[in-house]
């Protein structure tokens, strides 16, 4: 195993990790504010991908426009899901909300089948994201650079929002002590909606880039990435945005490197994430950067 | 025959940087009713929690008879014979009154799962024993008329009594009551004091209790321990405590 091979795997791992991070951030923000594991979050990825697909392939719009519309619509969908399905259960036992989230997830997936059909469609990759840099044997795809760059930018943006804006402060306050913040006259619903928009938009970006990396679009494409992104959020410390980013990166690297070192384990690739999840929840449930787990 | 049933030695509980309880030596002899009092936040419930295994003490010992039960898990301590009620009522809301009491009989069950499922062996006799005793206790507590009602449907005062009936179903050596008359008016409190005395003599109970109602505590307790900010400051009969300067100062504040 030479340096070039390791570096190559690192590139793949970081790229995959960034995608997980983008999705994980949304998960962790929503959980931090309303203590809900939004099962449907991964499916937002799928929605964004389909919007992208339709925009480019059916309506032949220029891709920057399509990307923008996709992110916007996915953000709106996030709010609609919260208002429609989660808000009525704000004061119910958490398990009820979890069950509802599972229901929403399945609803989205099967609506995908009903409206678009179960057969995978091929996502067109705009020319800008094609091609790669070559150093000796090392292949550095432009797409990876894009993904890394956009993820970094968005991460910084989100951190700025959380730590430097009013709404961000409200989000952090809500994640500490929901009831008190509510009693202090903060418009909790607006803050929650904002959280959903932010998280869903990031998931949309993650979804579009996911499709550019893995160009098949089908209704269940968001399930496993979504679950893995949740694992990443737990790994990094649920409730912490930087933790989610870190967790995503680590998870992506772990997945790629484990398979690279032991190719015969490639079939068990998906199990890596869940094994990490179980290990984390048993040994350090608060995750790498997290705070106390709520009971 | 006045052996010490429950004893703590230098029981200390530290949360993070806060010393919730510091060096508590409590002694409850057979048949006594001992009160644990102190201003709010003094560490009384913490003491009960540490004794019953709900939280782990940071240092010190808890002894039941000759048994060292320090830091044992709560179910084991309950099985050894310490039963308690909670400051905030913790009943099984969705279960009926009688089911609440019968659950406490679980640790005395002698039939296996197999016998339960097949309906064989000691299943029938044990079920009868547990439900009979539950009915008896509920009758003692005056709850026979609501035996099939949901625990959550009971008014506050009766819920408190149900909690005690449940604790009694453990056949405890020592019964610890955490604020049993909280929220009761003077008439209810007097009624409860009478009930407690009846239970005490009829069931030969040994009781430790926490409460803020001074009249009630002075009335029923043989001995009283006073703690303030986690530190024990007095120990004696109700007359002695009533006259103790340190106790008065603790309750009224140093501005007195």
């Amino acid at each position, binding site marked *: 195993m030479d340096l070039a091979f390791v570096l190559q795997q690192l590139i793949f791992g970081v790229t995959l990790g960034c995608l997980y991070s983008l999705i994980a951030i949304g998960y962790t923000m929503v959980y931090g504010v309303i203590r809900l594991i939004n099962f449907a979050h991964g499916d937002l990825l799928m929605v964004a991908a389909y919007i992208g697909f339709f925009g480019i392939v059916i309506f032949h719009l220029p891709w920057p426009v399509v990307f923008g519309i996709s992110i916007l619509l996915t953000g709106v969908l996030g709010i609609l899901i919260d208002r429609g399905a989660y808000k009525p259960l704000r004061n119910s036992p958490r398990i009820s909300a979890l069950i509802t989230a599972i229901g929403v997830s399945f609803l989205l997936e099967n609506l995908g089948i009903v409206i678009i059909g179960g057969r995978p469609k091929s996502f067109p990759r705009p020319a800008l994201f094609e091609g790669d840099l070559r150093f000796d044997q090392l292949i550095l795809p432009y797409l990876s650079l894009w993904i890394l760059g956009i993820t970094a930018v968005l991460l910084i943006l989100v951190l700025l929002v959380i730590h430097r804006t009013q709404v961000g402060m409200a989000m952090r306050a809500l994640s500490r002590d929901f009831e008190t913040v509510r009693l202090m006259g903060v418009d909790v619903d607006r803050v929650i909606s904002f959280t959903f928009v932010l998280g869903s938009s990031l998931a949309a970006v993650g979804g579009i880039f996911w499709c550019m990396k893995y160009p098949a679009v089908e209704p269940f494409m968001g399930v496993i990435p979504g679950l893995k992104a949740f694992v990443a959020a737990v790994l990094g410390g649920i409730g912490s945005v930087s933790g989610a980013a870190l967790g995503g990166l680590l998870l992506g690297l772990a997945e790629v490197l484990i398979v690279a070192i032991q190719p015969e384990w490639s079939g068990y690739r998906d199990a890596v994430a869940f094994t990490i999840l179980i290990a984390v929840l048993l040994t350090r449930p608060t995750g790498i950067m997290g705070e106390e787990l709520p009971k | 025959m006045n052996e010490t049933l429950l004893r703590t030695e230098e029981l200390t509980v530290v949360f993070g940087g806060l010393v919730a309880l510091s060096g508590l030596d409590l002694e409850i002899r057979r048949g006594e009713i001992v009160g644990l009092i102190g201003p709010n936040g003094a560490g009384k419930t913490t003491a009960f929690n540490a004794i019953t295994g709900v939280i782990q003490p940071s240092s010190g010992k808890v002894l039941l008879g000759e048994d060292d039960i320090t830091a044992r898990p709560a179910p084991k301590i*309950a099985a050894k014979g310490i039963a308690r009620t909670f400051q905030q009522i913790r009943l099984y809301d969705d279960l009926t009154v009688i089911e609440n009491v019968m659950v406490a009989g679980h640790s005395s069950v002698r039939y296996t799962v197999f016998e339960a499922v097949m309906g064989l062996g000691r299943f029938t006799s044990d079920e009868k024993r547990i439900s009979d005793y539950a009915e008896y206790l509920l009758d003692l507590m005056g709850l026979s008329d609501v035996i099939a009602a949901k625990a959550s449907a009971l008014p506050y005062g009766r819920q408190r009594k149900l909690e005690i009936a449940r604790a009694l179903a453990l056949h405890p050596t020592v019964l610890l009551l955490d604020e049993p008359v909280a929220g009761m008016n003077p008439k209810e409190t007097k009624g409860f004091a009478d009930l407690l005395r009846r239970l005490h003599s009829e069931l030969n109970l040994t009781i430790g209790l926490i409460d803020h109602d001074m009249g009630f505590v002075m009335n029923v307790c043989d001995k009283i321990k006073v703690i303030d900010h986690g530190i024990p400051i007095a120990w004696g009969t109700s007359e002695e405590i009533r006259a103790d300067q340190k106790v008065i100062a603790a309750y009224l504040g140093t501005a007195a």
Partner: protein
Amino acid sequence: MRVVQAVTGSYRAHVTRDRILTAAAVGLLLAFLWYADRTFSAYSIRILNTVAIFSIVAVTYNLINGVTGQFSLGPNAFIAVGSYTSALLTLSPQEKVGSFIIDPLIWPLSVISVSFPVSLIAAGVAAGLVAFLMSVPVFRTRGDYLAIVTLGFGEVMQVITNNAVSVTNGPLGLKGLYPYTTLWWSWGLCIFTVICTVRLVNSSYGRAMKAVREDETAAEAMGIDAFWTKTLAFTFSAFFAGVGGGLLAHLITTISPSLFTFFLTFNLLIIIVVGGLGSTTGALIGAILFAWGGEALRVVEEPFTLFGRDFPGVPGMRMVIFSAILILMMIFARSGIMSRREFSWQAAIDLGSALLARIRRTG
């Protein structure tokens, strides 16, 4: 004892009357099955078998989720373990050689072949054992996290069944199983499961489970070992999920990993939630509604004619409707049909008398 008449009549009031009524009901059911076995189409018999199998799994899934309040999302893993165990044990060595074309099946499974009932017991034991071993890590978590951890185990089982080719034959699955599952097996075991579960719930162990659900701290202070209580429910539930899996394998005669995905868990979830989380009766009702509703809704997925107009079938519409039902139920009728109530002959008699009285008054 007169006070006890008011108690939910599970163990004392009118015991003999209830026993006779239950025996009569079971007798009626068996008579119906005998009739169905002779006269119903293969399709309908298949539905009846499915109802029974789903009932077995749902009733015990309700035990861990609803009665003990430990929300597990991994029953698909236990059904898979049971299915594969049972299938691998009933296939003959020659059949196994024929199926396992990529990697031969490991010893001793390659040479063992047992009867169907033994394979079902083995299926249950295997699944129960997996659950028992999982208990220690799983019950260190609570609430949402318990759900996710069990979901994770379910996914890991998926990956394992797809990849452990020398044990499960991977994605190819196992074919050619002998259709041992008849109405007698599925419903017989269903009745057995229901009886066992009801008895367990009505025993002190069941009360302990409910106590753990209601207030774990208080339960522990009253002498209940929460961990063992949860483990009991978990293992019991897994055992019967395994048995259900074995029955399933020998009903549809072909199994593969894609049968045991989270989708299966989702279906079970709908069943127990719609029926009423915490109610064994509810789980049964849910299973019946689900199987019947599923078939009835199949209509929507094939082209059909309504009022003289042709509608194209919409595949996937069934699940859209089920998902919508689940969401609406959680928002408007969280307790489901039965809530936590159970069927009792007394309640049925009371209901019947009330209805009769009303009819007489208005008639």
